[in-house]
Structures are given as C-alpha cells and as structure tokens.
C-alpha cells in the first residue's frame, strides 16, 4: 500500500514538475514574443522618425526655392519699374506692346545705353510702303522695281551685318544650315520680331528656304494691284540677306519663292549658296 502511495506521490511530483516546465516554457515564449513586439515597435518608430525628417527637409527645400523665386521676381519687377519710369519720362508715344517687348529684351546687350528707344512700327511699315509706291511711280516695269529694291537692300545688308555681329556676338557658323538657322532665329527676331521656320530644299545642302507666316512689312497691304502682278513687295529683305551674307564671304542668291501677296499660301524666301559645301573647308580662316 505504501508503495502505491509513494508511486502516486512520485507521479504527482512528476506531473507537477512537468507542469512547471510547461509554464516555464510558456513564460519564456511570452517573453520572446514581447521582445519581438518591442523590437518591431522600435523599428516602426525609427521609420516614422526618418519619414518625418525627410518631409521636413523637403519642406525646407521647397521654401528655399520659393524664397529664391520671389527674390528673382522682385528683382525683375524693380528693373522693369526703373525702365518704365525712364520710358514714361520720354515724350514719344510708345505703344504698350513696345514697352513690353523692350523690357523683355533688356538682356540684349549690357553696353547699350537708354538711348536705344524704339520708333513706332507703323512709321517703319508706312515708310517702306511709301518707298515701294514711289518706286512704282518711277519705274514702269516690275523687274526694274524689284532690282532697285534688291540693290537698296544690298546696301543695307552690307552695313547691317556688322551691327548684327556686334550686338549678338555670335560665333562663326560652321555650316550653311547653321548660318541659315542663325539668320532665321536670331537676325529676323532681332530686326523684325518674327521667327521664320527653316527648311532645306536640296540634298546637296546648298538651298534653304525661310517660311514667314507673319511679315510685318505687309501688315497694311491687301493685294498687289493688277498691273503690278509680278512685283516682289519685300524684295528689300532679299537684298539685305544677300548683302549681309556677302560681307561674311558667303555668296548666295536670295529670292522670293512664294508670296502671300501673289496668292500663295505662305511667304517663302529661298537662299541658295553658290559655292559647294566642300569648298568651305578650304576657305582661309579670316
């Protein structure tokens, strides 16, 4: 009887020990999970901190940018104010369009003084119109008028080229297409305020055309009179381009290929360089 009592006692102790062990195990498990959760939490916190710092930095950057933009705009406004004040003091009647275009082209040449005041565009267009009208009265044939305009344009072009080079400070062009691009995008913009588009006509790279969708010289002209059907109204421009190119040692033929006044869709000026492109490499550098 005692043995079985002892045995049961043993068993119960065993049981208790196992219970203890299991509880120990459980507690350890719990602890480990706790630890893990705390780790997780800490990592989460870190990530959130990082994100917040990133956000702050971005905010700072945006604010810096805004401040710089503001500064730039302020400076611009001040400059425009000063220029506008000077312009208002003058006694010319300048249209608002010209004040805007003048201030937008402020950065053209730092050496220019305030004497670079603009004259009315209408006056220029009217002067040109009067010139063509007088030539039409003086000469009967259209070809004579065209030739005369071309000669006048030539004598303008040989002088204008130096003015263009002095003001725009462009570098020497390395190819015909670069030259024509320069004429279209810089020269036309500087002198007439329009930018024609350039297209290359021939495979040899000698012939180009400038397509003008807006020509300020023909602002007030509707169409050519019937007896002047082959008059090239803007032939002066052709002469100017020809003269200018000749002074930089580029022989070219310039003529009107299409003319809106004669009924074509667009106004197209064709420039044909007379020397072959390979000859340019052998040209002595000036």
């Amino acid at each position: 009887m005692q043995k079985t009592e002892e045995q049961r006692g043993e068993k119960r102790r065993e049981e208790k020990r196992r219970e203890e062990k299991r509880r120990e195990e459980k507690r350890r498990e719990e602890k480990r999970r706790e630890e893990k959760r705390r780790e997780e939490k800490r990592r989460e916190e870190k990530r959130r901190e990082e994100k917040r710092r990133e956000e702050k930095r971005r905010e700072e950057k945006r604010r810096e940018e805004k401040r710089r933009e503001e500064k730039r705009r302020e400076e611009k406004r001040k400059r425009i104010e000063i220029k506008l004040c000077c312009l208002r003091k003058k006694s010319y009647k300048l249209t608002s369009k010209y004040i805007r275009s003048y201030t937008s082209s402020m950065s053209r040449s730092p050496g220019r003084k305030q004497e670079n005041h603009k004259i009315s565009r209408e006056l220029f267009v009217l002067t040109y119109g009067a010139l063509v009208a007088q030539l039409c009265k003086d000469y009967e044939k259209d070809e004579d008028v065209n030739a005369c305009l071309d000669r006048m344009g030539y004598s303008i072009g040989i002088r204008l080229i130096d003015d263009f080079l002095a003001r725009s400070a462009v570098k020497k062009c390395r190819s015909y297409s670069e030259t024509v691009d320069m004429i279209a995008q810089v020269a036309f913009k500087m002198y007439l305020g329009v930018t024609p588009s350039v297209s290359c006509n021939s495979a040899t790279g000698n012939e180009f055309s400038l397509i003008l969708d807006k020509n300020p010289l023909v602002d007030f002209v509707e169409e050519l009179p019937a007896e002047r059907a082959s008059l090239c109204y803007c032939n002066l421009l052709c002469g100017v381009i020809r003269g200018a190119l000749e002074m930089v040692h580029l022989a070219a033929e310039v003529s009107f290929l299409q003319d809106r006044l004669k009924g074509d869709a667009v106004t197209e000026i064709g420039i044909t360089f007379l020397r072959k492109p390979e000859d340019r490499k052998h040209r002595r550098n000036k």
Partner: protein
Amino acid sequence: MAIFSVYVVNKAGGLIYQLDHYAPRADTEKTFSFPLDLVLRPHDERVVVAFGQRDGIRVGHAVLAINGAEVNGRFTADGKDVLEFLGNPANYPVSIRFGRHRLSSNEKLMLASMFHSLFAIGSQLSPEVGSSGIEMLETDTFKLHCFQTLTGIKFMVLADPRQTGIDALLRKIYEIYSDFALKNPFYSLEMPIRCELFDQNLKLALEVAEKAGPFGPGS
C-alpha cells in the same frame, strides 16, 4: 593705366582710322658744350643718336628741338642743316631736345598694313587648324590687342600691359563702329572714317575703359 592708341584696319589691310589717345612723352632736353659726346647721324628724314646713351637719351632718339626751336627734319627752324650747326663750336653751348619721334601718318599706314599681313601669316603658321590670327602681342612696355570681326575688319588697341578689360573694349569699339560709321549714309565702306560722332564716342569708351583700370571686368 593707359590706352595708348587705337587702329582700325579694313579688309584689304589699309588703315581707315587711327587715334593716339595717350602718348608717353619721354623727351629729354639738355645743354651741351663742344664737343658733343653723342654721335649723331642722319636717318630717313631725321637726325638720330647713333652712339652714346646717357641721362635718358637713348640710341634711336631723334633730335626734336635745338635751343627751343623745333627742328624740321634734318634742318633747323632757320633752315640750317642740323649736323653742320652742331659741328660748329661757335654755336655752343646749345640745348638740344632728344626724344622718340612721333610716327607720321604714312608710317602708320605702312605699319598697319604690315600687321595685317603678319596677322594672316600667324593664322597660316598655326599648328592648330582653324585658328585665328594674332590676338595679342606683348612687350614689356605695351600690349597690342587685335580683334578681327567676321567681316574682316580689324580693331587694334595698344595699351599698358597692366590694363584689363581690353576684350570688352574691343567689342565696344566694334559696336561704336557699326553704329556711327556704318549707319552714316555718307560713309563709304572701307574708306577712312571721318565721322565726328565716331570720334566722340570712341574717346568716351576709352575713358570708361581706362577708369575701370586694372580691376576692370575680365581681360
């Protein structure tokens, strides 16, 4: 800090404009007694010192005036030959002014054409393909800056070696040329420039460049 002179040369090499803005006069006037210890000899149209540098009188200096009266080439103001006059002991003591002679306009024309040729030779001799001609010539007393436009006109400025801002000045002179010379309808291209406005504006530009001095914008 000075800009000595400006030269404008056309496409053909001819001088079309010249301005002497500042000429450092290095004259020395001294009283001599017979016999003269300098050796003088005639050269071109002048009497120059051949031997015997002393007191600021250097070899190559010409006789500019005798006893205050300017000499006329090889003759004194009275018409006597200078060498004869100075060989006669009865004329001593005599005070003679020596100095570098001013270039006459013919000489300037010749020198400008010579520079035009050297400029072209410079661009040909260059080992690099597509280089420009002579842009700067430096000596210990002056610097010659040259700017050639794409149309072939050359602008040359002789300035003090320490003077800065000459590049900008050359561009400015180009602008002034394109404004006041080319836009003048009565000025023919490649001809000597005789335009008042060009002169005035050029002098203004030179003064501005000089005032900017050695601390001017760039060089």
